[in-house]
Structure formats: C-alpha cells, structure tokens
C-alpha cells in the first residue's frame, strides 16, 4: 500500500490511501498513518478511492486512527470508497461511527457534525 499526504483547504488534511488493505498492506502504512493522526488536531479526509480491497485488519487501522484523532479533538471522514470497499465498511457498521462522504460538500458537512 501507499499513503500520501496533502493539505486541502484550511484545517483539512488529506490522506490518500492506495492499494490493498490486508495484513501486508496495512503493515506498510500503519506507522505513517498513526504518526499523522496521533500528533496533531485536524479534520482528516481519508481518500479511499484508490483502495482496491479492505479486510478486517484494514478496518481496524481506520478505527484506531479515527479514535486517535478524536482524542486530539479532531475528526476523520472516509472519502469515496469504491462500491465493494463501502459494502465491507457497511457490513461491519463502520459507516455509522466514521462518516463516509462521496463529495467534498458532504465531507465538510460530516466534519461539522462530528
């Protein structure tokens, strides 16, 4: 997996994930991801559009990082997962605890509600 970071509009940090979020993939991004979510307060937009697969270990990574950011007073939104990834997220109830957005306005609204 790969993880890329970029600043979006003020206060929103974009984290782009790409690849396969299985055991091997999450091991490749876990340290970098947790360093970003546990060291500062931010509104974090996790772009999932290039994540091709997610297993339970990948969901665990998302939850751990969302919790870390919440502890710092920020929040996290999952952005544009593909249909199959979103079905996995919904089957495990993640959509009800970490907002999923498919456009930037919905993401802004989700940050506001978090």
């Amino acid at each position: 997996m790969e993880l890329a970071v970029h600043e979006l509009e003020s206060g929103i940090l974009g984290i782009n994930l790409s690849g396969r979020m299985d055991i091997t993939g999450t091991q490749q991004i876990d340290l970098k991801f947790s360093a970003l979510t546990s060291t500062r307060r931010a509104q974090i937009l996790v772009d999932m559009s290039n994540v091709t697969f997610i297993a339970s270990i990948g969901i665990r990574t998302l939850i751990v990082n969302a919790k870390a950011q919440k502890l710092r007073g920020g929040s996290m939104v999952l952005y544009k997962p593909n249909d199959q990834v979103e079905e996995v997220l919904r089957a495990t109830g993640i959509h009800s605890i970490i907002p999923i957005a498919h456009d930037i306005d919905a993401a802004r609204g989700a940050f506001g509600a978090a």
Partner: protein
Amino acid sequence: MATESSLELVIHARIEHQPDLAHWVEKLAVEFLLPQSLSHRIDLCLTELVSNVISYGYPEGKIGTVRIRCWREPEQIVIRLDDDAIPFDPTSCALPGLPSSLDDATSGGRGIRLVRHFTDELHHVRTAEGNQLTLVFRSLDTGTHLSAPEGTASAETPKATRQPL
C-alpha cells in the same frame, strides 16, 4: 475433490504467503469466469479465514498448512479449506454487536462477521487433523450479494476456543 474443473492451493500458514492467496483467487476468477463482485467476496472470505488460522490457529513456533480447493457446481462456487490448526468453528462463535459509537468499537469479530455476510453458506467440520470449512457462493451471474449486515445490539461472549479476527 481435485477434479479437472477444480483448483487447489496449498500454503504454509504464514503471513508472507497471503499474496499467494490473492493471486490464486485472481486465477480462480479467470478459470471460472467469475464476475468481479463475486471474486471480491471470495477474496475477502479467504483472506479473513486464512488470516485467522495464521494468527490464532497454532502454538507459537508451529507453522501449519492450509489446503484450499475450489470447484464450480451448476449454480454455485464451492470452496473448501482444510487446516491442521486447533479447533475453531466460525459458524457458531458469538460476535460482538455492531458498534454504536467510535468509543464502543472493539477490535475483534469483524473478520468472521464479514465471512458470514459474504458467503451464502458456511459449514464447519472438525477433522482428525484440524478443521474443514466449506464456503458456498451463489449469484454467479450478477455477483450481487444483497443480504443485510448481521448484527445485534448486545455483546456476547465468544464460545470459540480460538479468537476470531
């Protein structure tokens, strides 16, 4: 059940062999002309089950073996996993309820929940060597899987002797 229309994979139960599993599912999809959504379901279920065997199936230091066979029947794809791990029945273990808040989200049970959700049938048999799981997948034409997420409000104590993912 290794027939001409079946495929088989035998791997050591180690994390570094997980990519072999994903590649095997890609081969399976080509061999059986599976729709992408169905091959995704198979990929996910095998990833979760084999991960569980690797993580919890053996005493420290022991490297087990997982044998996976797949064949096509008229309206379904059948996959059978045989391992030499400690007993674990994913069809009967209780799972925690779906999380109601981020703070309530626990770390376990999601893998088995996903396997139950994305299979049409799931059967477990305890064998002399370990466990035998049979997974059945239907919806071969559309690959659409429409069942609702399984979930209850209350957490329950797992009955299994092996911790689910």
